[in-house]
């Protein structure tokens, strides 16, 4: 039996023991329980999709005409109807999801750049998942929904604390991972013709940046912090 084999066996054993308890008491599921990690990743990726659309709307990256009101978490949100844009965002998050499942994604950053591809704003979602996830509370998911709603609200009013962007901006999504998680990503092309590359220094770091915190949320399954790094001189 190879070493790799043993690792998988132990993994499964762990899961199977944990899941037994899970069925009867629903008390504590460990990170190894892929099911739970996947649930959290699902929730988070759905939220990130809504958040990215909202950021594009509020910061005028694309004209308001392509956005349409839709409902998420029981409140109206603006989502884009442009098929290519939607597909791009979905593909991006589809690739990010496995990293979140394994708790390897540290930050997801939406960078807004001006015409010369210099970043003017960076919306940083810092994500962390507690190692011991407990879903004992029945109201957990509605509590999480409430927290996500609050973040959506904060994004909607962020233009009060940010300067206007110059016209002709574009955006991109960066993911900061812990350790060397991206080594595996290069081997496995998660989506065909949608490669991920290591980001330029220019996009990752912004000179003369102001830090504007927007919202922090803490829950049993997820901790997230949203802040904006804004360039002092945008034009």
């Amino acid at each position, binding site marked *: 039996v190879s070493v790799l084999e043993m690792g998988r066996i132990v993994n499964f054993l762990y899961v199977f023991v944990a899941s037994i308890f899970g*069925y009867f008491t629903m008390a504590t599921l460990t990170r190894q329980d*892929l*099911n739970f990690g996947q649930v959290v990743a699902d929730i988070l990726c759905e939220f990130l999709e809504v958040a990215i659309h909202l950021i594009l*709307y509020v910061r005028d990256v694309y004209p308001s*005409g392509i956005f349409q009101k839709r409902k*998420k978490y029981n409140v109206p949100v603006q989502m884009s109807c442009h098929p290519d844009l939607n597909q791009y965002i979905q593909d991006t998050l589809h690739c990010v999801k496995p990293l979140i499942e394994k708790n390897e994604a540290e930050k997801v950053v939406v960078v807004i750049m001006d015409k010369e591809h210099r970043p003017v704003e960076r919306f940083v979602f810092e994500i962390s998942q507690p190692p011991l996830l407990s879903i004992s509370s029945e109201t957990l998911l509605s509590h999480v929904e409430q927290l996500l709603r609050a973040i959506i609200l904060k994004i909607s*009013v962020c233009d009060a604390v940010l300067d206007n962007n110059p016209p002709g901006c574009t955006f991109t999504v960066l993911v900061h991972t812990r350790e060397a998680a991206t080594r595996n990503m290069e081997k496995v092309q998660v989506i065909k013709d949608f490669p991920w590359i290591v980001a330029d220094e220019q996009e990752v770091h912004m000179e003369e940046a102001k830090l504007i915190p927007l919202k922090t949320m803490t829950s049993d399954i997820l901790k997230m912090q949203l802040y904006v790094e804004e360039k002092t001189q945008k034009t």
Partner: protein
Amino acid sequence: MDDLYLDNIDEFVNDQNKIVTYKWLSLTLGVHVNTAKQMLYHYLQQKRNESSGTPLHATYLVSGKCVENGSTCHKVSVVREDKLDAVKAKMDVTISVHVYSVQRAELKDSSPLYNTDYEAVKENLKNCNKYSAIRCAAAVPMSSAGLQRAQEMALVPPEEKEISKPGLNENTSATSKSSAKQPAGIMGMFASKNASKSQESSKEVKTEQKDDSSLVETSKSKTASKANPMSNFFGKSAQKKADEKPNKSIKEETDGSSTATAIMKQSQTSPKSKIDIKDEQSKVSSALKVESKDTRKLKMKKNKEIGSPSGQIVPDSPPVPNVQTPSPKKQVKREPVSHQEEISEVKRRKRRRVLKSHTFVDEEGSFVTEKGYVSESYSENEEVPEPNSQAKDSSSLKQSFGKREEEKKVKSQKKTSTANKHTKQPSITGFFQKK
């Protein structure tokens, strides 16, 4: 003391960058709504007179009579400050104008206003109209029996609900009026693009999967039950409509099809969780994922609704990637088959849940052992259960998986039984001996 509220509002608006609606303010400070409106007005006056500091934006609620399309109507709208005079001029009689909200941000649309009020009302659900100016003696909370009856009724006429929604959305806001024409122009481009793209993607999906039938079936059932996503949980009747489609592969499965679609629906609530088609697991994520489940199904239906700016509940989460959908469907396909076999077999056969491990060689030549809780049928003689059907299933499964899906906990009931021909009683140490 009386002016303390001005400081409070100032803190909310300037320090916390909140949107202060009159409803939110009345619930937060515990004052009547009319008092809250006055407070906001005074605050605005004071700040505007100071003419310093950060700029404030306000929205107003205007209500009055106006003539639209030849008929007089009573119109109530929330308007931005810059549009206030224009809207007032349009009305024949302006009955009331008051401050709706005060905030620092210049809102692009009215969604945050709703969001703010939603939270405030949610927190005070039991007494949200305590400070309201609207009174109705007949409005009392329902008893639990009444609530149950109402829930049952809600399942029956789902379509009427959808039709009435456009009427409610007539609540016009001056902010959205200006952009109404623009969507028609830009949205029109997307409608045609989407239609052609969705046809392409639907073809892709169909060729990728071996059982087109189940996909077409679900899409048909989705069409039938499109009106109320919630009814998918219960509506087996909606799914039976799909069964009548004249398709060979569907005919093969008609026996188990109704159970299959029911199980498929449940499994799609948590498509990633491979251990289960158990209700417990789906309940864990059901609260938040009701919408996400529906979004995936509706997306797979290739919605053409994107083109129409109807403002309806339209899904917005990413569709389940095609690669993953084969797996829950494959599992589901086997389950109804196994149920039938179980019934038709010798009466002495029973099923028990057993921990089985199955070792096999995957494409890269490495051994993979899979453990799973397996429902295995056994008779008192402890014969090997159903060997032939398993071999067929496992080979077809391997072809379609192709990736390292084995590492995820796929419930391969038949596959694991094949491996355990030789062990009568599986034990935890069993897998150590396998090579």
